[in-house]
């Protein structure tokens, strides 16, 4: 596979783009997902309905269509030029939030009732109770499903090649079409995905054990 050395800078650039979009998407999804989960749980009927529509849109439609919609409509609607990488950031963040909201809400519900009542009983406001009691516990529980979300999002970023973002898969596609060495090129690209996703997953495993509440054994 020495022919790939020549293209290494291209692969590296693509890799960094992929990592960037993945981390940005997963983190924006986390922050937004927390807000959506809180809104759904405590925001009342109207807010909860709006959130439901939001989630259904991002979970129920193909990612590529979401990319197209944002890529072609935002510049026209808002009359601002927008580059395809920015569209990637936005769409992956919004999309991931739709999924993460479900995980976070589930985790919050699982610690919710008695802990909330106890928190209110010492005089905390509902907001404080969420911040200091419910969320710290829920976010610990959410780490494993969050890992799945990361894993699936990291691979979905390859869809970005369709709007012309030079991420890892698109780098592979270019190299394969220049060199006609399809099998080697894509195998190598796939190995890069495999490697970095495994490393992050391992890190999440360690984090999960590190922040585990002492004395509580979770048998999954």
């Amino acid at each position, binding site marked *: 596979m020495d022919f790939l050395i020549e293209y290494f800078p291209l692969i590296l650039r693509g890799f960094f783009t992929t990592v960037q979009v993945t981390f940005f998407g997963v983190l924006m999804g986390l922050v937004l997902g927390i807000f959506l989960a809180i809104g759904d749980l405590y925001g009342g009927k109207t807010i909860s309905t709006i959130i439901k529509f939001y989630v259904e849109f991002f979970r129920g439609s193909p990612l590529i269509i979401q990319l197209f919609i944002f890529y072609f409509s935002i510049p026209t609607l808002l009359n601002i030029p927008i580059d395809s990488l920015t569209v990637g950031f936005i769409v992956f963040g919004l999309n991931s939030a739709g999924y993460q909201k479900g995980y976070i809400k589930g985790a919050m519900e699982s*610690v919710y009732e*008695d*802990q909330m*009542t*106890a*928190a*209110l*009983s*010492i*005089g*905390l*406001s509902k907001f*404080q109770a969420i911040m*200091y*009691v419910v969320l*710290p*516990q829920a976010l*610990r529980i959410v780490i494993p499903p969050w890992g799945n979300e990361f894993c699936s999002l990291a691979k979905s970023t390859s869809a970005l090649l369709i709007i012309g973002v030079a991420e890892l898969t698109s780098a592979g596609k270019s190299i394969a079409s220049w060199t006609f060495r399809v099998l080697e090129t894509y195998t190598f690209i796939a190995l890069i995905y495999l490697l970095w996703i495994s490393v992050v997953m391992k890190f999440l495993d360690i984090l999960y054990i590190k922040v585990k*509440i*002492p*004395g*509580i054994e979770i048998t999954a």
Partner: protein
Amino acid sequence: MTDIVMECRNLWKIYGKIVAVRDVSLEIKEGDIRLIFGPSGSGKSTLARCLAMLTTPTKGDVFLRGECLTKPGVNLNKARARIGFVFQHIWLFHHLTALGNVELGLRRVLKLPKKEARERAFRALREVKMEEWANHYPAQLSGGQQQRVGIARALARDPDIILLDEPTSALDPELTGEVIDSLRDLARKGTTMLIISHEMPFAREVADEMIFFDEGTIVERGPPELFFTNPSSDRARRFMARLIKRTRRE
């Protein structure tokens, strides 16, 4: 005039068709220890939760030092900060140590500086003899120890009153003793308390007044001696007979 710490007037709590609390009026004075007992499902816990405004009463008023908590616009967080509550199933915050559990309210509700909050939390833990367990998490403590932390959490803020909802009923008999000891200490210090409990020897020892509660309302009330010698209502008499028999067996 203002030695009444907590009061409720004509309190009702209705869930759908079920009347959990039926027209209850109660006054608790400074330093009073009231003990509520009665069959399970009779609405004792609901009453306690209504008094702490953890559940909104359907009808009637709750007063804390003369301030009405049931009228709209009252800052309930502020009011709850002055009421200690100890739960039957303990409900410590799982992710915090014993110290963290006690400290949280001091830091975030009373907004005490870190050092002062820590000192007060330690003092509260000392009162229930849990100081040396300060850095343990709830899951690393026995039920009795957990409940003592629960009591420390309730009393650390120096609340006007502590409400205890069957603090020992979820514990093994051999763990009840240590919790009762802590409560006895509090009683000696003149803490105002409303205790739901069926620990009869303890009740006889510390309660200023016992209240027999059934079907959502007060059936009979009076000094402990009344219940131990000659309750006037049939229901109370039968219930006491059963309780005393059970206590002897233990």
